[in-house]
């Protein structure tokens, strides 16, 4: 066995109302990739945050290369040689890429801690180049797409040259091409003798990357084993406590009449000439590489951004959508890719978030009827098996995946005829994913029309009845389910318009 890098002994952590971790012990060797999997809310992120010094109050002991660490601050962890890609992206929006990457470790003169601006720029450029990222170090974080921000986070974690690099769902927001680049970085880190702790809900990544895998469930460690000694089914069984088969359900109904038609929709500088139609009972997949403009198209459709060209028809009537309120009135529902910004009100309870768009369903005039509201929300919590102590828990204290389910629940409560899902399973565990797929299919079979934007090709192929592929803001290809394949989608996504 190679040198022992990291040792966790009996780590426990309690939050008000929940035991997030209960006596987790783990050993990780140097020069390996150790995957950590588990359902949403299993405690993966909490364990990593403790390791990173973000939660100074915990029980247990952490040893790095045999030395005991008293994890009191992030600074200590960073100095000790641990860095982390956070699940909820943590960046300063108004700062540039370079400033964010070197935040807290700016190259500077001793005198007055004067920052060497040129150095900063040059080093960022080198780093981004090394990571194979084509990004201007001077751009501001707030102007980047979610995927680009994720890439910057990755570059930042790498830039510390740490002995232990934690990656908490690093691929949840990026597409296949970027993920490939990340994987080769992981390989480089591994061969340099450092260790990677890798959290993911995409189990194929475990087998592609990891040497060992640990399964957590409800704060307990279920098992740690070598990757060769296990397989997907076994892992899933350990995670969710049961077998899981056929995660993509089959269509049982034929599509109904057309409900939505989009003609030559365009927004200056972002996308143009977007035309498609949608029938009841249909799932339309929108694929494309990162920053292809998929999110922008669906945001315009939902009235979050203005469009300046084109026409939209719903139920054969031309409509104008100027605000989300218009869209909701017309029977649209939307689940955004960015739950923290467009999805949730963090300081409100789970219940209040779920009912926010549909208070009219539980109100008498302007007065909310508490029992009606509780009933509606609890129904949603049960339907989507959202893991929460009760409906009164603040939504910001839910695990990432469960927050995603709240956003979905909110949109579903409006009983929309057309449901737009932007990366609906981002950060959701396999068990819950299959629930959501079942739900999507059930909704479609019940006559709803669904638009699903996704970077997960498996999901696109498994769920869509028809697929459109975007490239640089235009449609570069259309595929029916029967003819679709990974290769075809990728070819269109890269910009080729001919077969």
């Amino acid at each position, binding site marked *: 066995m190679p040198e022992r890098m990291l040792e966790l002994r009996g780590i426990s952590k309690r939050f*008000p*109302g929940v035991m997030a971790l209960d006596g987790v012990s783990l050993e990780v060797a140097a020069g390996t990739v150790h995957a950590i999997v588990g359902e949403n809310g299993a405690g993966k992120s909490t364990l990593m945050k403790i390791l990173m010094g973000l939660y100074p109050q915990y029980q247990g002991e952490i040893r790095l290369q045999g030395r005991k660490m008293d994890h009191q601050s992030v600074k200590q962890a960073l100095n000790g040689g641990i860095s982390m890609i956070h699940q909820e992206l943590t960046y300063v929006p108004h700062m540039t890429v370079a400033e964010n990457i070197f935040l807290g470790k700016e190259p500077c003169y001793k005198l007055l801690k004067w920052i060497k601006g040129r150095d900063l720029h040059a080093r960022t450029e080198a780093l981004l180049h090394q990571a194979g990222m084509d990004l201007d170090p001077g751009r501001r974080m707030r102007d980047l797409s979610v995927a680009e921000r994720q890439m910057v986070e990755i570059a930042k974690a790498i830039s510390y040259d740490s002995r232990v690099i934690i990656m908490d769902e690093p691929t949840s927001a990026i597409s296949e091409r970027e993920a490939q680049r990340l994987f080769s970085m992981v390989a480089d880190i591994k061969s340099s003798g450092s260790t990677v702790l890798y959290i993911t809900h995409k189990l194929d990544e475990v087998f592609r990357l990891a040497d060992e895998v640990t399964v957590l469930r409800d704060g307990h460690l279920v098992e740690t084993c070598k990757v060769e000694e296990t397989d997907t089914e076994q892992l899933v069984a350990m995670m969710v406590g049961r077998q899981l088969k056929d995660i993509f359900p089959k269509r049982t109904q034929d599509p109904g009449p057309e409900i939505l038609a989009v003609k030559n929709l365009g927004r200056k500088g972002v996308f143009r000439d977007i035309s498609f139609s949608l029938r009841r009972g249909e799932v339309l997949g929108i694929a494309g590489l990162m920053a292809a403009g998929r999110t922008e198209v669906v945001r315009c459709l*939902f009235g*979050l951004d203005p469009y300046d060209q084109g026409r939209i028809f719903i139920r054969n009537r031309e409509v104008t959508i100027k*605000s*989300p*309120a218009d*869209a*909701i*009135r017309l029977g649209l529902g*939307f689940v*955004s890719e960015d739950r923290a*910004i*467009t*999805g*949730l*009100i*963090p*300081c*409100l*309870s789970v*219940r*209040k978030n779920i009912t*926010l*768009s549909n*208070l*009219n369903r539980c*109100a008498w005039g*302007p*007065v*909310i009827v*508490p029992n009606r509201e*509780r009933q509606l929300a609890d129904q949603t919590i049960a339907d989507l098996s959202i893991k929460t102590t009760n409906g*009164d*828990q*603040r939504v910001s204290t839910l695990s990432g995946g469960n927050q995603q389910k709240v956003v979905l629940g*909110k949109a579903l409560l409006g009983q929309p005829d057309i449901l737009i899902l932007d990366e609906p399973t981002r950060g959701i565990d396999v068990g819950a994913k299959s629930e959501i797929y079942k739900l999507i299919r059930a909704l479609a079979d019940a006559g709803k029309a669904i638009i699903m934007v996704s970077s997960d090709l498996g999901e696109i192929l498994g769920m869509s009845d028809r697929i459109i592929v975007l490239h640089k803001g235009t449609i570069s290809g259309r595929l029916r389910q029967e003819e679709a394949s990974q290769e075809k989608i990728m070819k269109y996504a890269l910009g080729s318009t001919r077969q």
Partner: protein
Amino acid sequence: MIQGNDHSFADLLQKYGLIVAFLIICAVISLLSPAFLTVPNIVNVLRQISINAILAIGVTYVILTGGIDLSLGSIVAITGVLAATFAHPNTHPLIVPLLIGISGGILIGIFNGMVITRFKVAPFIATLGMMTIARGGALIISGGRPVSNLTDSFNFIGGGDLFGCPLPILILAGVFFFSYFILKNTTLGRYIYAVGGNEEAARASGINVTKTRITAYAICSGLAGLAGIIQASRITTGQPNAGISYELDAIAAVVIGGTSLAGGIGSVAGTVLGALIIGVINNGLDLLNVPSYYQQVVKGLIIIGAVILDREQGSK
């Protein structure tokens, strides 16, 4: 009580923390001054806080949306002067000055809200501008002099008793229950919290953010108009220089009461408790005849101390 209530356990503890602080302050004062815990003095304190508490409840709406209103004190002055101008004996029935005062406040609030939402001016600047505009307006209308000689019925609002209880206290109670209900049990209240909690997400949920914001400012300034009427009536004069820096006391009550200036978190119950704490401190220091220079030091320390006690409790 915990079950079925939409406050988490930590929230409850936090609220109790403030109550504990309040009780400690009361206990200390009543040990030092026998006059403190008497019915007349309690009524006295309640009457004295009524104006600040009404203003504070109003600005709670605005702060919950993530805004702020610095024009409150000036609104008290201009609405007081306006109402007084229409309250001279043998001119108009009582309802006229009341309507003019309150609707004057509401109009100012709508103006504030429009400047903030349509022209995207930071609430701090928009209402700071309104602070000097309304003050100037009050001085112009009154010519810089107190507007006195008002009808008895007008003076009854701030000075009279009903069922043995001073009217301002009853008005405050009404405003409190009304606002408690609005914020807790109506869609408007929910939207106010949502807008303050995450504006972008509120918009994406189909909420008319602009309308919600403007409504919050309108309610806030309307209540300031009510406070202006009570104040003018209580001192039987419309004073153009009334209400200077009232906004700070009102905002202090809100923040002491646990409402976050970032918006989205808080309650009017906390606000009233905050106003009570400030009122009791003022009253106690006067009762104990603490020399006025030291009063200020002690008052500042107690307020900070009360909030610390609150936060410590809450974070346990």
